[in-house]
């Protein structure tokens, strides 16, 4: 955390960073994140001046690596830049030798992380002990909230879509009043008419679902392209799985059939003369 601050301070005073002509072999190495290296025009072997504050850039280091950070959804909106150093070099720069923020503990195979954490928690005075799973669960809370929000928006969208579909189906079927009257006059059975109208509703729903799926795939691709560029990350923002497609198509088919059958039922139970507009 603190070294990131130092680098942000350095970025603000970028003109003081590159210093040539030092005996770089004796300087500590520093690994620089790709984005930061691009921002500051750094390459392997460049010497940088760094410190914990812009007015105390007294330390020098040689860029020994430029790395691509692992995509992390928790970090993208912060837009912080990072560097990596060997622990003793960083501790010396911070003036805090032999101090760390946290320890990582690897357990022998077969040991349960939670029970080991409980033992450490009861014995290690002054430490907070967390299992990796607990940390992952805690840090994923943000995304659970976003997921809940998306689900709520999806429900509202489904309600809006259902009403829209019902309305359109009703209008489509009502448009066929004269056709229905003529069919009834020439002896076509109500059941046949109902089936025909239902088939038409199903066809409309299928075509709508196919077009909608295509639009969703295009919108998803556009969303990913835009946000990957916007946040300079390889993360996937829109992920349309077969399960989502199946659910959406099944839902729209179901809604289409329900809406179509309601509208068709309303039409076939109306007397032909009323449909013809003579009563």
């Amino acid at each position, binding site marked *: 955390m603190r070294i990131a601050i130092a680098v942000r301070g350095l970025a603000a005073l970028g003109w003081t960073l590159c210093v040539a002509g030092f005996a770089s072999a004796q300087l500590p190495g520093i690994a620089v994140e790709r984005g930061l290296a691009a921002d500051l025009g750094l390459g392997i072997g460049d010497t940088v001046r760094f410190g914990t504050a812009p007015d105390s850039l007294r330390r020098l280091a040689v860029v020994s690596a430029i790395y691509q950070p692992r995509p992390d959804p928790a970090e993208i909106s912060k837009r912080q830049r990072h560097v990596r150093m060997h622990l003793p070099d960083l501790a010396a720069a911070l003036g805090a030798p032999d101090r760390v923020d946290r320890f990582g503990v690897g357990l022998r195979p077969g040991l349960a992380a939670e029970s080991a954490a409980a033992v450490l928690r009861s014995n290690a005075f002054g430490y907070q002990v967390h299992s990796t799973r607990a940390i992952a669960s805690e840090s994923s809370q943000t995304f659970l909230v976003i997921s809940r929000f998306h689900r709520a928006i999806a429900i509202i969208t489904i309600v809006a879509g259902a009403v829209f579909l*019902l309305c359109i189906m009703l209008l489509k079927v009502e*448009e066929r009043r004269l056709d229905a009257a003529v069919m009834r006059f020439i002896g076509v059975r109500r059941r046949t008419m109902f089936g025909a109208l239902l088939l038409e509703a199903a066809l409309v729903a299928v075509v709508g679902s196919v077009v909608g799926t295509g639009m969703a795939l295009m919108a998803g691709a556009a969303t990913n392209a835009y946000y990957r560029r916007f946040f300079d990350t390889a993360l996937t923002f829109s992920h349309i799985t077969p399960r989502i497609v199946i659910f959406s198509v099944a839902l729209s088919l179901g809604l289409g059939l329900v809406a179509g059958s309601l509208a068709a039922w309303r039409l076939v139970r109306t007397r032909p003369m009323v449909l013809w507009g003579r009563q």
Partner: protein
Amino acid sequence: MTGIGWGVRSLGRHPLRTALSLAGIAVAAAMLLDMVMLSGGLEKSFGDLLLARGYQIRLTPRGTLPFDTEATLDGASRVVAALRRDPAIEAAGAVLGTALYGRSADSLVGLFGYGVDPTAQGLYQVTSGADLTPGDTAGVLLAGPVARLLGVGPGDSVTLIGRLDPQVAMAAVGRRFVVRGVVHWLYDHRGQLSVGAVLPVMQRLARADAADRASLVVIKARDDGAVGSLAARLRREFPELEVSSVADLVAHFKLRLVYFRQLSYILGSMSLIVAVLLIATLLTITVHERLGEIVTLRAIGVSRGTVIRQVLAEGAALTGAGGAIGIGLGLLTARYLDAILTGFPGLPAAFSFFVPRAGTLGTAAAVLFLTGSLAGLYPAWLAARSPIAETLRAEAT
């Protein structure tokens, strides 16, 4: 009867169809309203929160935002003294944030400690008991959740521990304090366990007293209109510090939550499109159904303008009624969505994503009404251009 009267009455001929259309428009309008509230609510809510105590500028370590990192600035008293000499500044105070422990029976509770200057603080409001006084080194302020957890109130004593020493398994820095008051920390998230003491006490607990460290300095300018120029001047005077006005912080915040703003624009536009499609479809089919009636009216001398007004009035009536229902529905769903989003970990409890504002709501209503009314243009054009004789002949057969 006027064209508008006809238009409104014609909606009553098909109650089911009209009801469904109204429901569709209402849901679309509710979504539009929610998205308008979301797009502007973020910055409004955050700006109001930052200005809750009237402090318009924050000074933090260079490259950081308030409490965004653990970085601190040193020589806080020197910075504050220099700021207080500035005639453009009404008040300035340093704040230190640090991790603490409180003793509850035989166990320790993790707390967040604020070191404040009670005469110049923009962080809390006293809800019961008394505030700290500047020289009060024995007093402490507790957040409601801490008071409940420790089972104490104003006048009681609590033990706070600044640092634990794992090597000797004991508290390295700790002492007893008297609870002066229970306060509402403005920037705390729900249930946050925060305590406050005067800055020198908190610096000692955090072992930050030697370098006189603070997390930030808050500044209240005498003139609200001069905040921008004061911030610019402070940037020149304190190049080692980050000087952020409320506008700067809101801009940073908007950048972080850009996703929600963009989502609100996209979903708001889609809601508008759905409403327009629904109205246009309904009116087009209605016009087709009533073509005979419309051309008969034309044949007896009713002008094209009256027919167009009638169709447009139907669209306007649908949009108006659907929008009115949509406002109520939108306010309800906004509360539901806000309850979800304010569950973000670490978000101040006072923060809101969906903020109803008269200006933005008026704009949304006007846009919906205008586009909804314009959705009737195509069906109105269809109605007006129908050939009278040909249509009447077709209707007769």
